[in-house]
């Protein structure tokens, strides 16, 4: 698929813009969730309007398979997130409803604790 200057190619990582690492799936994530070109370009400033239009054309012709692939990617990430959180400690979920000030204070306390541990370890040697 191409216009005069932009082609969609598959070099083994799924359809992508020739000469650019942005893939159809990268852009489809936003299209599928209702975002427009302006939003997508804010996320990927190197994406041109011409490249976007070619991707939209590709999406229109492969909608079903892209929806299915997007679902698989979401499931993959969800499994990864759950496995990460299950490790506990610094890998645990931190989704509590805290204010920014509380988050900053929590992290500062961890930093201070780590500095104290490092200083303590230094003194003991």
């Amino acid at each position, binding site marked *: 698929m191409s216009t005069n200057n932009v082609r969609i190619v598959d070099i083994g*990582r*799924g359809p992508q813009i020739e000469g650019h690492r*942005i893939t159809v799936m990268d852009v489809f994530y936003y299209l599928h969730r209702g975002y427009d070109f302006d939003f997508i370009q*804010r996320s990927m*400033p190197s994406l041109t309007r011409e490249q976007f239009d070619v991707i939209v054309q590709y999406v229109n012709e492969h909608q079903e398979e892209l929806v299915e692939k997007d679902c698989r*990617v979401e499931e993959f*990430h969800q499994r990864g997130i759950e496995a990460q959180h299950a490790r506990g400690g*610094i890998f645990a979920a931190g989704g509590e409803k805290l204010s920014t000030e509380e988050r*900053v204070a929590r992290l500062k306390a961890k930093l201070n604790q*780590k500095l104290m541990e490092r200083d303590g370890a230094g003194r003991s040697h």
Partner: protein
Amino acid sequence: MPVVLIDANIEGQGIRIWMRMQSAEWRELTAALEVTFKTFQDVGLDLATTDDAIWRFCQAQGFSLLTSNRNQDSNDSLEATIHREGTSTSLPVFTLPSADRVYSDATFIERVVEKLLDFILYADNIRGAGRLYLP
């Protein structure tokens, strides 16, 4: 000095996160941890660089990649490269699956900043972790 390399597919969000890390609330912690963010352009990487080449570049330079990468299929995909070439000392790949929320959810970006700084604070504990999700 920890360096986070922003992938091309998430450049806008990466810069926004970096700006938030330099806000009045977060900048003291950001400075204490000596974190910095770089774009492909900053480090002279071509926008066509493949996943495996980027992963190797990051490991060689001591950078952690920030991406919303959604490709898993090929042998040179990020996921395949992490599994094939990752070791117990490899630097992680920070992954932001819901990248759109950086723009739409003020609490979300605070959680991302906190989690990222938390991971960087415990840098030795996250080596070899492969892919780490934010937040």
